[in-house]
């Protein structure tokens, strides 16, 4: 199951920043780093990000566990590219039968993996240090997102863990009705489809009930909503965004200076 609970020390100076500021900083950082294809800029950015980790109150081991899907997919990307990329320039490093690994291929593949990390890591850090309720509050109060959307999504989000249990229940209930797939892959696919459909029907019904219950408590009124929990956007939050922009800018500048910069477009 996807775990999205925050795993930070709540008093860490950067984890305490406004969720919208953290989100904006992560987005800016990612967008800037997407602009180059070279491995140097992302490597610098990753180094900065990891160095800042203590300020976010996240331990490296915890982060690695959170980023596990990213690690796994990066290994996949690296392997696929090294073996099958069309470009075969540079010095030959390994030649085994049909497989030819050259320095050019290796550098391109490493660059791609580093970019993946540099772009995704800020997001992983934001999720790991942000309480979903705080994020919804800040999105409404500081980013002017409609409350109906933010709290609706938050409430729906809370139901996600229920889906896993529900899936197991439906599968067992199917078996109790004499429906199973045995070893037939086609029957398996059909069973998967019909189980997913039942799950969806149940989720929609539950979502509808939740929506009615929310409206019964005045969620649909036109009265302007008040805020029981305040989210402040202060100077430190502005500085976080500026700092993230600066960090990504420095990484790009260094990459231009050492001559490895390769723009995404052009």
């Amino acid at each position, binding site marked *: 199951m996807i775990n999205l609970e925050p795993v930070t020390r709540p008093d860490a100076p950067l984890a305490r920043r406004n969720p919208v500021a953290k989100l904006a900083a992560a987005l800016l950082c990612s967008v800037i780093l997407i602009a180059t294809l070279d491995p140097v800029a992302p490597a610098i950015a990753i180094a900065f990000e990891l160095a800042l980790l203590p300020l976010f109150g996240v331990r490296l081991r915890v982060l690695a566990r959170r980023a596990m899907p990213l690690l796994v997919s990066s290994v996949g990307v690296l392997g696929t590219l090294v073996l099958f990329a069309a470009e075969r320039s540079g010095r030959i490093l390994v030649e085994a039968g049909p497989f030819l690994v050259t320095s050019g291929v290796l550098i391109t593949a490493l660059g791609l993996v580093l970019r993946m990390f540099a772009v995704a890591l800020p997001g992983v850090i934001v999720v790991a240090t942000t309480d979903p309720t705080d994020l919804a509050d800040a999105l409404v109060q500081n980013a002017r997102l409609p409350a109906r959307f933010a709290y609706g999504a938050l409430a729906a989000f809370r139901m996600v863990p229920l889906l896993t249990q529900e899936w197991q229940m439906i599968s067992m209930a199917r078996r109790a009705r004499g429906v199973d797939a045995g070893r037939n892959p086609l029957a398996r696919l059909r069973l998967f489809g019909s189980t997913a459909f039942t799950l969806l029907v149940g989720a929609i019904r539950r979502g509808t009930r939740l929506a009615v219950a929310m409206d019964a408590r*005045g969620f649909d009124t036109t009265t302007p909503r008040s805020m029981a929990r305040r989210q402040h956007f202060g100077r430190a939050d502005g500085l976080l965004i500026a700092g993230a922009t600066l960090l990504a800018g420095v990484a790009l500048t260094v990459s231009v200076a050492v001559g490895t910069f390769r723009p995404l477009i052009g």
Partner: protein
Amino acid sequence: MSAVRLRGFGWRHAGRKRWAVRGLDLRIEHGERVLLLGASGAGKSTLLAALAGLLPEDSGEREGTVEVDGRDPRTAREEVGLLFQDPETQLVMARCGDDVAFGPENRGLPAEQIWPRVDEALRRVGFRYGRDRPTAALSGGEQQRLALAGVLALRPRLLLLDEPTANLDPAGAALIRDAVAAALDADTTLLLVEHRLTEALPLVDRVVVLAPGGGVHADGTPQAVFAAHGEALAAEGVWVPGHPLPPRPATTSAGETLLTADELALPPRLASVSLSVRAGEALAVHGPNGAGKSTLALLLGGLLAPAAGRVTATAELAGGDARTPPHRWRAPALVHRIGSVFQDPEHQFVTAAVADELALGPRRTGRTEAQVRATVDALLDRLRLTALAEANPYTLSGGEARRLSVATALATAPRLLVCDEPTFGQDRRTWRELVELFAELRDNGHGLVTVTHDPEFIATLADRQVRLDHPRSVP
């Protein structure tokens, strides 16, 4: 000005042929405590939704008028609070305090007034935890108590409770009953829909019974209504106090053993338990929430693999397959030996029509089309579902869905039937039919295991009981 005034009120949901409620004239004064009764499908929930202003003009057709405090309920929303059955789909936020604050925020209450109100609402329902307690860490009864606090924080003058204890075990239901009793002000008007009269009566001073065809069937003090209409109400399905049901003990002694469980366990859900089930015997498994009763039902039903111990079918039940444990049997082989009825009937529905639902099992076990048709017709008739044969199972009422889910398990004629809370939230009529059906099955030599919280069910039907709380073994 009355708290509630209905004049010839009727409502038909868009796309439905039948009026959910019709021809209703009713007047409720401020501070009255009213219990609303009526057979399943009499329109009780629709009436509550109308009073809460939750029936938009374009969602159906209206007749007559409905007023709350002399106003259209849609413009009197701040006067009304509504609590639903299912706590899981009422809680919005991740922390208890935030959830109670959700309503006051929607009403635009200034932040400095919200938290005192939250604390007061939590205190009034007797909530034991702090504001920061995660809502996911609460039991069903505690969640429903929190949902009640969320409604009370809006200080409604009219409080509507739609079967607030239907999804709770007896301990959870008691929590809610006490919380409602403690939370009512002298001038709060209460309108309560509830099947469990013994629990509801201490809270109310007036009973209104809706007639199934429309209008009010009876209205007055509980004593007067039950003295005049008790017998008829009980026959219609209302749980009227003082109308006990006759016990149905086994007419023959129990036969051969069908299934045994030896030190069966699935930590952390179920501690080790050993038991055996015999033909012609109704075994009731009871115990508090969290003791693993539903898990035990799934293990006995061959739907879940145990972590320790084993389930063994005898040759009497499984013939040559008795050597393999039930959870390894193919599904078609399983369903004509052990039938399972789940707590939530909707989990088990696979097709788009009631008749297809009943035909599914027999077809899977290789009966001829004529045999299938005969089985389906007999079950439809036996469980009063013939008129609904073409209906979609998901559109059935709670009682109808329960009858269908039991019927689907019986369609393959399993020798052993395992049921999880089959009588949960059922009206008296459906309850009697289920008990009668189970008693017949048992007397015809079937084995029956029922996981249940229902003391009346146990008293009426069970031949033997297993209590599940600590690891223990019955011979």
